[in-house]
């Protein structure tokens, strides 16, 4: 991948959207692993004294695979490490330990010059469409910036490509010279999406892309993401806390709690029959838009999320789990394979 010359890069860009059909990238069949995380750990320093420094255990021993062309969702409550994991996977943050294989190639510890060629294939869309666009740059400049960075120096050529992208994401071309504050939240998110697909990436990390949007706008953006994926064979890592949105967009789901994985599996199977107690409570807790499903006494999770500075020993979930047994307090559960599912629990639900 890194041996691809700049000319070839430019070629790909000129052809814009056509690159998935022209043979450079075969249509994904969903079986090839695009990105693989191996026992990733990310810790942040959190004060303490010099003798006893404290660390936040943001991501603990996470291994997962993202297949080409699929949407893998990372779900969990705030502070469970899903955003950190997303950023570590494309090396916006360096992992404390563990490895990341991109198309079979180790990218942790790779030299920056070498990694630059790969970085363009991994893009990210951020949650807050108000904070993620530079207020002093016009839409044309914002979307064109990655093109400029990766060598499209000719201004006219760049403008043509930006206009093409704007059309792609549904922003009228006459807005080329407008500034972010002149747009609504939904339109800004479209600008962020245009910027992310400008370099024809393979993998896009969508970090809560619709949670700041209103319901009617949310569905527009979700449809757009799905269309783009179909057209360009994109692979998404979709980070969200909204389980109904995840159900709509994801092929597979990975549920996280306090930095570690609880359960990974196909969306339909996982929603139909959660095996980890946490998944079940999470699904139970969603307010459903149907008053007939209202239940008098709902089975609710008690308590709060423990601190990631001093995570509980053994299973991370044991302080809130109603089925807790002695072993859960002592030993970290190993991976149980049930069909295509992977569950990290001593006593998976039957």
């Amino acid at each position, binding site marked *: 991948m890194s041996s691809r010359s700049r000319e070839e890069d430019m070629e790909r860009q000129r052809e814009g959207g056509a690159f998935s059909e022209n043979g450079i990238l075969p249509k994904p069949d969903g079986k090839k692993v695009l990105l693989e995380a191996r026992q990733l750990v990310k810790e942040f320093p959190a004060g303490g004294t010099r003798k006893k420094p404290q660390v936040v255990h943001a991501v603990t021993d996470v291994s997962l695979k993202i297949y080409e062309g699929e949407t893998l969702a990372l779900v969990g*409550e705030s502070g469970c490490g899903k955003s950190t994991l997303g950023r570590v996977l494309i090396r916006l943050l360096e992992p404390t330990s563990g490895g990341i294989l991109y198309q079979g190639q180790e990218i942790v510890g790779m030299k920056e010059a070498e990694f630059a060629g790969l970085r363009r294939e991994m893009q990210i869309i951020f949650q807050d469409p108000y904070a993620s666009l530079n207020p002093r740059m016009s839409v044309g400049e914002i979307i064109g910036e990655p093109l400029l960075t990766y060598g499209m120096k000719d201004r006219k050529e760049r403008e043509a490509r930006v206009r093409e992208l704007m059309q792609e994401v549904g922003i009228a071309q006459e807005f080329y010279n407008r500034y972010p504050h002149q747009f609504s939240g939904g339109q800004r998110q479209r600008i962020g999406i245009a910027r992310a697909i400008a370099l024809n990436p393979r993998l896009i990390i969508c970090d809560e892309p619709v949670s700041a949007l209103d*319901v*009617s706008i949310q569905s527009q953006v979700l449809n757009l993401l799905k269309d783009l994926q179909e057209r360009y064979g994109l692979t998404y890592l979709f980070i969200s806390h909204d389980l109904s949105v995840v*159900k709509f967009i994801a092929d597979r789901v990975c549920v996280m709690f306090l930095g570690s994985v609880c359960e990974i599996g196909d969306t339909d199977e996982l929603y139909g029959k959660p095996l980890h107690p946490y998944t079940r409570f*999470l699904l139970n807790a969603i*307010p*459903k*838009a149907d008053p007939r499903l209202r239940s008098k006494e709902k089975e609710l999770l*008690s308590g*709060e999320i423990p601190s990631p500075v001093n995570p509980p020993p053994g299973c991370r979930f044991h302080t809130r789990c109603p089925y807790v047994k002695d072993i859960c307090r002592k030993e970290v559960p190993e991976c149980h394979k049930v069909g295509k599912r992977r569950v990290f629990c001593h006593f998976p639900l039957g």
Partner: protein
Amino acid sequence: MSEAIVLDIRNLRSHFFTAKGEVPAVDGVSIQVPPGKIIGIVGESGCGKSMTAMSVMGLLRYPGRVVGGSILLDGRDITHLTKKELSQVRGNEVSMIFQEPMTSLNPVYPVGKQVREAILLHQKMGKDEAKARVLDIFCAVGIPEPEKRYYSYPHQLSGGLRQRVMIGMAMVCRPKVMIADEPTTALDVTIEAQILQLMKKLCEEQGTSIILITHNMGVVAEVCDYVYVMYAGKVMEQAETFALFEKPSHPYTQGLLKSIPKLDEKAERLYTIDGVVPNLLHLPKGCSFCTRCDQAQKRCFVERPCLYETAGSREAAGQGAGCQGQASQEVGSREAGCLEAASHGVRCFQYEGGGKLDE
């Protein structure tokens, strides 16, 4: 009828006088709140749901002000109270919870003292007695170790606990109405579910009515008794919760419900309402939803629809109140008031056959 309704908002209009022109943020909103019920106001951002609440609380600030209509709290108009009178109502008879519990608590005082302040301001009570009362309410809202938490500062509490403190503060004077403005939006789902259940429990136990402002249809379906759907400063549809979800009548409500991804079905694409919420300065001439409506006729672009009553809504409301309202049986005489609030109204010409509910 009016004695059965705790809070009666009639044709409320609040405008903002900006340099660019007059913005009708709340444009003729009527909401009836029966005792001990949870009323939901749903809508997207900018539809005027928060401004309605702020108007009730007398919290509108320059350049906004209430320009018309009345707000009757137990039959007494509170729109034109003096500052002094208002501060006796606020926090005492009507209280409010805000979306972000961090910004609405004072960071430099322990939370217990902040809750106690509410009691000392409104009731003749000694400090020790007030403290005991605070500890009681902390227990009631499910704060573990209340004795210890009394002296905690807001930053030492988690988001869920802070929101519980806020609810405690709002409930401590046993108000008649509590307005909750997006109380669970900043919380995680498992905590959200806990808080919603807590609010429902308090509402039943203490007979406090709650106005719950939210953008989440799921939250509405979960806890509300009646729903008002707002759009561009107007109530588009009002109904008893079961009736609304069973038969959403306004094209906007239908669109909203269809565009939420469902947990129990796998859709290839989501339904979308095209376009964006119109600028309140340049509202369309006719129905404010006409530019985005998929059922719009020529007439919708020229004339403004009233709130019409749907056919058969009275009977449906009667059944609804009968089958699920033990509360309404207890209050007996208030039954009629509940029915009034439950009539299913839609602001759309398709329902012109029904009687007008406003204008």
